[in-house]
């Protein structure tokens, strides 16, 4: 409705400018200009024309604080530009990136044992993840408990005494924090 009104008003402006009003009462002419089925609004401004003239400025009023032109910062005494690393674009098609995600659907597309119908699972292929962390979904407390379970058998306490102590301290602190300072999640309240 507002656009219709706007178009009417613009039509009114154009009509009053370009139509002769001799011999016609101003009231009638105004009414004519407001609603006249013979008149129609025509688009005469296009965003494409504005863009064609040059780049349309964005962020009006914003002052860019980074250097856009001129000499790079340098030590005046040495008169040598400060070192900047040369830009090297990443290779999107190196082996790792090109074959990313391979074998993620091995349990669906891989061969299955004819009797038991067991297949490989993608969690069995997480070679770059620590073995105790493969397929683990949990918060820090759960992850640390699992780590302690895996590590204590191998004599971790003898080989890494500080880390073993830190691990146990962290578990103790998390236990007290989670059980004495925080409430259980809403789904655990009976």
């Amino acid at each position, binding site marked *: 409705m507002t656009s219709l009104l706007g178009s009417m008003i613009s039509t009114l402006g154009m009509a009053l400018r370009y139509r002769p009003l001799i011999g016609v009462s101003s009231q009638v002419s105004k009414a004519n200009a407001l609603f006249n089925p013979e008149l129609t609004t025509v688009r005469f401004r296009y965003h494409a024309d504005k863009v064609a003239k040059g780049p349309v400025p964005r962020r009006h009023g914003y002052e860019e604080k980074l250097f856009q032109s001129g000499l790079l910062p340098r030590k005046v005494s040495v008169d040598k530009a400060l070192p900047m690393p040369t830009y090297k674009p990443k290779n999107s098609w190196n082996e790792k990136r090109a074959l990313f995600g391979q074998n993620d659907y091995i349990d669906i597309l891989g061969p299955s044992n004819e009797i038991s119908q067991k297949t490989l699972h993608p969690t069995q292929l*997480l070679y770059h993840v620590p073995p105790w962390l493969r397929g*683990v979904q949990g918060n820090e407390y759960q992850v640390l408990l699992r780590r302690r379970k895996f590590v204590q058998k191998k004599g971790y306490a003898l080989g890494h005494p500080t880390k073993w102590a830190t691990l146990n301290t962290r578990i103790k602190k998390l236990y007290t924090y989670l059980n004495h300072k925080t409430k259980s999640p809403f789904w655990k309240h009976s």
Partner: protein
Amino acid sequence: MATKIINKTVTELSLRITRCFFVPSKTIQTNATLFQERLETSITNVEEQLPTTIRPPLPIIHSRKLAFPPKFKAPRQVWVSNMDTVEEEKLGLIDLHPEVFAERPRVDIIHENVRWQQLYRHVSYANTKMRYEVRGGGKKPRQQKGSGRSRHGSIRSPIWRGGGIVHGPRSPTPYFYMLGFNTRLNGLRSTLSAKLAQDDLHIVDSLDIPTDDPSYLEKLVEERGWGPAVLFVDDNDIMPLNITAASDSHGHYNLMPVYGLNVYSMLKHHTLVLTLAAVERLEERLLFHLNRNDAASAGQKYRLDSV
């Protein structure tokens, strides 16, 4: 050179599979292999005239039996091309199962699958020290009262510069989660259907090419209007030597066995090229999962240490 090529295609996994699961490879008896006369000379220079392949009258491949015949959807028909020559020669027309290749593409499911692939293997090793882990800070810096300055108990409290971080990242943080079995299954179906619908899926009889020259592949892909990046999928994970050598120098031409196919790779590569054997295997696997009796047990939630 030879070892480098082998390492590219024969993965640790494939060796495990060939050792653990013996699955007799199904080869399709195409008439092309029986009647084709080809000169078996080794040619390294592409500019020399390649021997003209003599074929019987087309179509060579003209029928394919679909497992679990579709009742309410019409099978989709695709041309089968060759890889022997740079110019495309259509060897025949085959049917593709609509349940696999003509499913309405669900963009939200495709997105879920891509997100899962990116996240489930991600582990964040970012770590910050708590106040009791930062070196020092056991002693009270100054007397409680009398100095006129603010009171403190430790120089490593979180309000101090150089102090511990309270709720910072704790290494290692796993972002693992398992997407539902059917969501992943439907992701594969949606992506394959989208690829076919957008003319980015091509079927070839086999991946045998006459030379190991990388420019042969370039010319072939350019001639046929296949996308800049092409993913070649075959049933077997040990690929023919020529195509392996030709694609080795190009990072955007990649070879994959059927079990390695995934939504992310299909979207990363512009064109997907499947061999007939790959189509058979792919359809067999997906239709098996769609029509199995014990789908409930297969689609159960993943439990840690259950695999």
